[in-house]
């Protein structure tokens, strides 16, 4: 606005003329091959990963095809807003990284990439089943899965050893037992129960599922949160919170558990690989006594949260084929392998060809992230992708059900609250 007030009328006229000329040129350019493409990404937790795209991949592609690929990085947490803006205005980057169920939300604005997805799958030893869960909409692939940012148990081996545990407890009940001992020894657990995105969903949905409970049936209509299984999961969560943690976790967002773990306040949390990464960089001694394990088992099995990073092509892209060609090139082993490597398994590949890739040998403690892919699902599972699913997440229905129980409400009350909310949300779906 300030800039506008300084413009004279002549400037405005000049700009208008330029704009008109630009439009004409743009129209002419649709016929010719594009000179450049833009890919949008959220700033990575692993800086070399972003740098590798800009310096190596983009440069190599320009050399091979003459097409310049710009890499537009947006700040952490703002990607959805940017994707929304681009989709609504029909302008902006040609390709974008997406997560969760956005392939469904922005369905109409993303190009069908089924043909290259199938090719890439064949070339890469087949896709993990969970890869398709977030990108296949109405039988069509609306994005190419890139990698999962898994959420697993991060724990201190030295303190667990002092409490008598050489390996990570296999079930939730055993973990509770360990937690009671560790809290008494001055090393409580710290699992996020607040309004973050990753570290709360990362353990609460798996906990719910592992007790055999779910929000909605696979038909996407029948609400089944009000069950004995849910009640047992809630009761467990309350006990787990009271006897192994402290009140503050109820207000945590995604940054808090990393801070608490790295400052030696807690002995166990649920997180992505970022804690071990930071520890190796900043606290090498602590890094030696950190390990990562799959989520514990419940009465009905072991589960993990799917947190996929995928690439989609916007329909407003001038030359859709050029964007698809680029993605196809990007996902070929020659490009993909080294890109995964710089992030050392921070992004876990959805292609089986990478199951035994050398990057898994760099840090064997990351291996559970690979194994967790087999039991990983999106929040809302087993219901198919839907608008209601997004709303349930945005309204923190399941998270708050657990959090309210931990803060003192009765199991019956919190389930009734969640049931009421889910009924209202799914009615419109």
């Amino acid at each position: 606005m300030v800039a506008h007030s300084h413009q004279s009328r002549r400037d405005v006229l000049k700009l208008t003329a330029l704009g008109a000329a630009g439009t004409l040129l743009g129209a002419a350019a649709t016929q010719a091959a594009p000179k450049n493409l833009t890919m949008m990404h959220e700033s990575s937790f692993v800086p070399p990963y972003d740098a590798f795209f800009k310096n190596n991949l983009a440069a190599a592609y320009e050399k091979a095809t003459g097409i310049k690929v710009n890499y537009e990085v947006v700040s952490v947490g703002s990607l959805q807003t940017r994707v929304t803006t681009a989709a609504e205005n029909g302008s902006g980057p040609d390709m974008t990284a997406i997560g969760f169920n956005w392939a469904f939300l922005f369905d109409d604005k993303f190009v069908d990439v089924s043909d290259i997805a199938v090719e890439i799958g064949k070339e890469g030893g087949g896709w993990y089943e969970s890869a398709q869960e977030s990108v296949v909409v109405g039988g069509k692939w609306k994005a190419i899965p890139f990698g999962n940012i898994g959420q697993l148990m991060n724990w201190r081996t030295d303190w667990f050893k002092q409490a008598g545990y050489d390996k990570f407890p296999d079930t939730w009940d055993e973990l509770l037992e360990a937690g009671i001992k560790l809290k008494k020894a001055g090393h409580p657990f710290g699992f996020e129960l607040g309004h973050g995105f990753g570290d709360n969903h990362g353990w609460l949905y798996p906990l719910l599922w592992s007790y055999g409970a779910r929000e909605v049936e696979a038909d996407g209509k029948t609400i089944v949160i009000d069950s004995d299984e849910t009640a047992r999961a809630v009761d467990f969560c309350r006990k787990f919170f009271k006897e192994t943690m402290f009140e503050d976790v109820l207000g945590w967002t995604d940054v808090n558990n990393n801070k608490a773990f790295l400052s030696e306040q807690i002995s166990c949390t649920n997180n992505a690989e970022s804690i071990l990464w930071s520890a190796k960089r900043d606290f090498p001694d602590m890094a030696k006594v950190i390990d990562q394990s799959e989520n514990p088992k419940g009465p009905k099995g072991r589960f993990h949260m799917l947190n996929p990073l995928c690439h989609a092509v916007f329909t407003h892209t001038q030359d859709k084929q050029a964007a698809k060609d680029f993605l196809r090139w990007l996902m070929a082993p020659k490009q993909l392998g080294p890109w995964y490597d710089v992030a050392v398994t921070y992004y876990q590949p959805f292609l089986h060809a990478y199951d035994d890739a050398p990057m898994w040998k760099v840090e064997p403690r990351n291996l559970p992230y690979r194994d967790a892919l087999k039991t990983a699902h999106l929040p809302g599972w087993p219901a198919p992708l839907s608008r209601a699913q997004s709303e349930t997440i945005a309204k923190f229905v399941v998270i708050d059900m657990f959090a309210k129980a931990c803060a003192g409400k009765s199991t019956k009350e919190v389930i009734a609250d969640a049931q009421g909310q889910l009924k209202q949300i799914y009615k419109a779906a």
Partner: protein
Amino acid sequence: MTAVLAASAVRRRPAVSLGRWLEREGVFSWLMVALPVAFLVALVGYPFFYGIWISLQDRPVAKPGVFVGLDNFINDWHDPVFWQVVVNTFVYTSTATLLKMVGGLGLALVMNQDFRFKNLTRALLLLPFIVPTVLSTIAWQWILDPAFSVINWALMQTGLANPGPSWLGNPYLAMFSLIMVNTWRGLPFYAITLLAGLQTISPELYEAATIDGAGRWGRFRYVTLPLLKPIIFIVTMFSVIFTFSDFQLIYVLTRGGPANATHVFATYAFDVAMGAGQFGQGASIALSMVPPLALIILAMAIYMRPAKS
């Protein structure tokens, strides 16, 4: 001949009358106002009415909307979280505004005295207001994090509490903490504006009041307060509007948690519109702010209207 004359007269008349017409005060003043009005219509009016239009639709992100009338508002009405948001917003706004008003007035009265380093102190006073909210809020994040909190450290050192309170984990304390941070940030605005108002009050009035036998309290009650009333009104109105629609502070510190205990209109509307991609529903939540806000401002305008003498 007459025809030619008549024709030229007809031709000349509009030019003359247009110039004269433009010079008329009524017309000219409207012309001057037209530009700002057009500006407001484009940048405030259009988004506002577009918001109303969207709130009447079932409008998912990236898809065309379907007109549904008041369905979104009816949904809000049946949404327990919406009512929690209403209560939170009122508690947040009223408490923070009251604290800012009383604290700001007190601060302004103190600043109006003569003391050493007066100007420096006045400048420093503005600091919380100058620092970008997102930055200062991150500082508060550390202050309110029990593991690193200076407050908890002090409490533990003095043996008053161990472990210290959970500032953002306890629902009541979380609301309390947010109100405190909002007050901290908004106080300078109140204080500086009221200080400016205080300086316009003529000392003769105080002298006259003293001669009439008014004490310290009497001078404040019968001279300062009535003369400051219009300024208090303006500042409070601004403060209510900004506090009511606060977003950054809450989004950085708690994102509405724990369990919605600090969700307010702006944060909830954002989560529903952007997070869930439900533009219609989100717009209806955001628009629900307007009627109560308008009522509060109207009530304040009536209550604080300068008395006609």
